[in-house]
């Protein structure tokens, strides 16, 4: 009896492995092995045409000597610091306000509308915003002109081009994070809120003492998602600014792409990619430690 049960479990385990196998192969080849290969190439001078030659730490030395790399690193970090808090706070405020004060058909309509930019492709979004940001006759400058504001060279000035990239990103992402927050706010128990109301807590106090603490796991997740996706920003930079003017909007991801596929310096680009990987893992580790400590 016992033996037959064992074989049954064994058979189930084999079925289980077979079910897992396809995804396992995909994740192994396209993620794990790929990372190992990227690490290997980062120590070579591979350029697509000649066999890779081992060059030790040369690529890394050159990366850390390169001014473009520091520009890309600074821009990426600045971008994360600007975009993640803004989109998180905006999404939180919108979700909480709509859930608390506009729980009606109009509120849910607005919620649906705010989500729409998320399904626009980054390339289409950038193509449209590029026209909106045009200095001569761009609709944004025309609108500002009505208030007597002079033409602004949005995509041509260094700081402003960076601001434009941030605007398009936030415009595109806020709705997505708002929907996640909204589901979270709806999950907060009514009893808790009612008890607070009975205790005489006003809306502001309820927000700080009940809503915000209950949403902590969601906030953690949204920040994680936001940081990871902000570190990878590529499409919008590629289409909206091309990294320019100068190197003012170039990012690490954009640098990996251009060095690998425009300049065929695959070894060098792999070194930048590895630096990007280390930074993302480091931030994740810090964030984990920070959130666990406050638990």
């Amino acid at each position, binding site marked *: 009896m016992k033996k037959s049960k064992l074989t049954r479990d064994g058979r189930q385990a084999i079925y289980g492995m077979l079910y897992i196998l396809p995804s396992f192969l995909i994740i192994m080849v396209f993620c794990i092995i790929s990372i190992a290969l990227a690490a290997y190439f980062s120590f070579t001078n591979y350029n697509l045409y000649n066999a890779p030659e081992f060059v030790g730490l040369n690529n890394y030395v050159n990366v850390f000597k390169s001014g473009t790399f520091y520009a890309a690193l600074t821009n990426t970090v600045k971008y994360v610091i600007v975009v993640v808090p803004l989109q998180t706070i905006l999404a939180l405020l919108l979700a909480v306000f709509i859930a608390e004060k506009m729980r009606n058909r109009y509120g849910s309509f607005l919620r649906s509308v705010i989500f729409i930019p998320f399904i626009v492709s980054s390339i289409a979004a950038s193509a449209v915003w590029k026209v909106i940001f045009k200095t001569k006759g761009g609709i944004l400058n025309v609108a500002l002109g009505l208030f007597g504001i002079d033409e602004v060279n949005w995509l041509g000035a260094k700081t402003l081009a960076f601001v434009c990239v941030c605007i398009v990103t936030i415009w595109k992402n806020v709705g997505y994070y708002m929907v996640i927050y909204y589901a979270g706010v709806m999950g907060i128990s009514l009893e808790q809120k009612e008890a607070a109301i009975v205790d005489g807590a006003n809306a502001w106090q309820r927000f700080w003492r009940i809503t915000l603490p209950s949403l902590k796991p969601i906030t953690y997740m949204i920040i994680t998602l936001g940081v990871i996706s902000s570190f*990878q920003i590529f499409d919008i930079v590629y289409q909206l600014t091309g990294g320019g003017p100068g190197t003012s909007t170039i990012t690490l991801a954009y640098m990996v792409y251009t060095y690998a596929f425009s300049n065929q310096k695959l070894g060098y680009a792999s070194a930048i990619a590895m630096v990007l990987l280390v930074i993302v*893992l480091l931030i994740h580790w810090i964030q984990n430690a920070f959130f666990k400590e406050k638990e």
Partner: protein
Amino acid sequence: MVGKTKRFSLAGAGGSILVTFFALLCVAPLVYMVLMSFTQLRTLYIRLEDITFNLQNYYIIIFKNSFGRALLNSIIVAVLSCVWTDLVCAMAAYGFEKKPVPGKEKLFKVYLATMMIPSQVTLIPLFLIMRQIGWLNSYAALVVPMAGAFGCFMLRQFMKNVDDVFIEAAQIDGCPEPLIFLRVVLPLVQPALISLTIFTFVSAWNSFIWPLVVNTNTQMYTFPIALSLLDSQHDTNYGLTMAAAAASFVIPFAMYVGMQEQFVEGIALGGVKG
């Protein structure tokens, strides 16, 4: 709610106006895109009489500018990606959640960890692997990597709530294992599959950097690549570019309007419960 008294609050009204204003800012660029797509402008000074509401730009985009092929490629890739991702991820989720595989929790942690890896890190090796196996300029190169940890995670979350009795009943009836998966498990997780399908469709449809790298033959361009090229041309006919942008938006938008509930549920499933 305590006290149904609907007191008029200034903060509430002001907030509603702000939210309405924000929602307008969200759609304004898209409305502008659609209006511009009906003009033949080479300058940006748009006047009401320029908006012709004829489909000339859309006609040119699809039939003259080789966007037709790009549109077809995008549709094929998106549909195949959905089928492939649903199948691979549902199998994985079933295996991880309902089968006694030794070491499965550790392996699942590895799956989850891969979601953090920036796609640019694997971009170069992935390209070289595809070149090695002769998959450059193929649909397979765009479809196969689409099935990843996110789908496995999302479906497993949902499968946790599926009662084992249905599966056990089928096993007792002597139903062969592949049929249990196809006839019992897949229908039980259908709501999550719909959400995953929507997600996969939109991300395959909008995917840019990977098709840009791996499909360099003009015949294999997807829609975003074709749009990107058109937009980068110096002699820009704004109406034409906007029509292409609008055309790329139509299908995901129609899906969103038709299946809003599933969109939102899918986000909550992948997000909140995790």
